């Protein structure tokens, strides 16, 4: 049971990181990233391949974060001048192409065989049998750092600027700020977090192949942000926790409902994720969390 709990909590940490990244990009910035899983996969592959080449895991992780941030910025540059629909489809296209390249360019990525034997950072530190716990602590530390940085960012002038570009880009332009620059930076920071999440994924499983990454990772992240409340980092972490425990817990339903195979159960779970997304958007569009407001906004809103 403890083993299971540790494994599930590690998944929570991975989902929380992806959710936090999307919360910055979509929740705060209004930029729809449907290709989230592609950036996550890229992070996993950069970290995995470099580690297997003999680079220290932490260096590989840093390179993965920078690499994904750079590519995120490029993909945002292509489309952020247009409306959001285009950004969604460009990021999705990017992710799909990336998956194709990784699947077929075997000389670089080992194709469908996958990359195995990826070493975790600080593995030698933990006593025998405590490796997973140690890794969990590392992942939770990563979540904590990202959360702190994002909270600080949300309260900073830059955070206000990001929310302003989401709510009314026209006003931001009129005030002499470059909407394009803000959006590219938001996408790059989000990309760095996704690179981190992907690297931790690669370290955790120590084996990656293209089939592990699919649009469902994107769907979970969107679910986390919608449930947690767009813009609320605390809400997103809490909802990632709830979501993963619900999804993992539903595996036990197999024993309770006779005649239900693993693939049927997976289909039901994902069906509920899809339906849940729509239902929440209709009935609880602001989610259960609350976006941090500036003191000024609180003052003006309390008057009404």
């Amino acid at each position: 049971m403890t083993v299971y709990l540790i494994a599930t909590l590690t998944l929570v940490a991975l989902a929380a990181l992806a959710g936090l990244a999307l919360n910055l990009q979509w929740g705060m910035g209004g930029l729809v990233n449907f290709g989230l899983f592609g950036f996550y996969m890229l992070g996993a592959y950069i970290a995995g391949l470099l580690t297997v080449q003999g680079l220290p895991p932490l260096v590989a992780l840093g390179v993965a974060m920078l690499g994904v941030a750079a590519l995120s910025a490029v993909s945002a540059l292509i489309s952020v001048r247009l409306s959001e629909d285009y950004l969604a489809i460009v990021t999705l296209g990017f992710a799909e192409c990336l998956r194709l390249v990784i699947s077929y360019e075997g000389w670089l990525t080992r194709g469908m065989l996958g990359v195995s034997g990826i070493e975790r950072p600080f593995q030698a530190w933990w006593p025998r049998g405590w490796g997973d716990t140690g890794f969990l602590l590392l992942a939770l530390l990563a979540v904590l750092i990202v959360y702190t940085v994002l909270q600080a960012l949300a309260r900073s002038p830059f955070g206000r600027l990001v929310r302003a570009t989401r709510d009314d880009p026209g006003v931001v332009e009129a005030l002499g700020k470059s909407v394009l620059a803000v959006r590219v930076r938001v996408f790059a920071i989000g990309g760095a977090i996704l690179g981190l999440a992907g690297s931790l994924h690669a370290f955790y499983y120590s084996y990656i192949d293209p089939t592990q990454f699919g649009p469902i990772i994107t769907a979970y992240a969107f679910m986390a942000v919608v449930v947690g409340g767009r813009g609320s980092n605390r809400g997103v972490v809490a909802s990632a926790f709830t979501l993963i425990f619900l999804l993992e817990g539903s595996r036990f339903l197999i024993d309770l409902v006779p005649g239900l195979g693993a693939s049927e159960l997976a289909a039901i779970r994902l069906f509920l994720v899809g339906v849940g997304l729509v239902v929440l958007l209709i009935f609880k569009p602001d989610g259960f969390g609350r976006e941090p407001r500036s003191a000024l906004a609180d003052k003006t809103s309390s008057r009404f």
Partner: protein
Amino acid sequence: MGQLLVNGIVAGLLLALPALALSLTFSVLRFANYAVGSYLSCGAYLVYIGNVVLGMPLWLAAGAGAALFALIAVGIDWLAYRPLRNRGGVTLLVASMGVAIALENVIRFFAGNSPRAYNVPVARPMRFGDIRLNHEQLTILVTVIAALAVVWIIFRFTRLGRMMRAVADNPDLAAVRGISRSRVVAYVWLIAGMLITLSGVLVGLDANVEPQMGWTYLLPVFTAAILGGISNPMAAVAGALTLGLAEEFATLVMPVHYRMIVTFLVMVALLLVRPWGLFGTRWVTK
């Protein structure tokens, strides 16, 4: 060379119907329906039930399936999209992702992941000189052109077509003139549902019927619609043909499994140079 041209035109026609449907719904509803790929798989599976499980001939199953899925498309709009109508394009976009996941997993639940094929007689391809044309390709050619002609006639010459164009052009003005937006929206979903089901059948004939089939068509369909200028339905057809030809001719220099990368490059080049589409007018002002 001639063979590539024929294959390219057929590939383009295969994209034409869903691209037309996507752009039709976009022009009236102002949101990009990300679930169009799942709609395609769903339609294909409904027809599969009629054709293989119930033993109907394919044309009858396709007709019944198209009618049924058209109603389902209207139903999905009622349940999922209508309550969000005033919430802006991004919310609807995310909602359509939810719809896509839900639909795809309904299919997986009932039909599993294994690929299936329609019950049609196998026939030898026809030859015209150097060029081979198999029966599936001929079916695609005839069906798509017929469907396009019907949609064009509706769009151009009927009262419904005028109403659709009016709502697409200016919903408020159309409402003032007594055109019920929700009725036009329902008709648009009916037409889109039928077109997408037909294309699902054609894709299933061309390849296999499997849960992933719509997903692989999602990016090309969006690219084709953007090529045409996304809010201009008939130009989406031209966009689809252009993309089909581009994909086919790119196989001369790139491996076949990188088709989607060709599509992506076409989209990126287009968005950088002419974001309002090859044939569209300049409406993107952002």
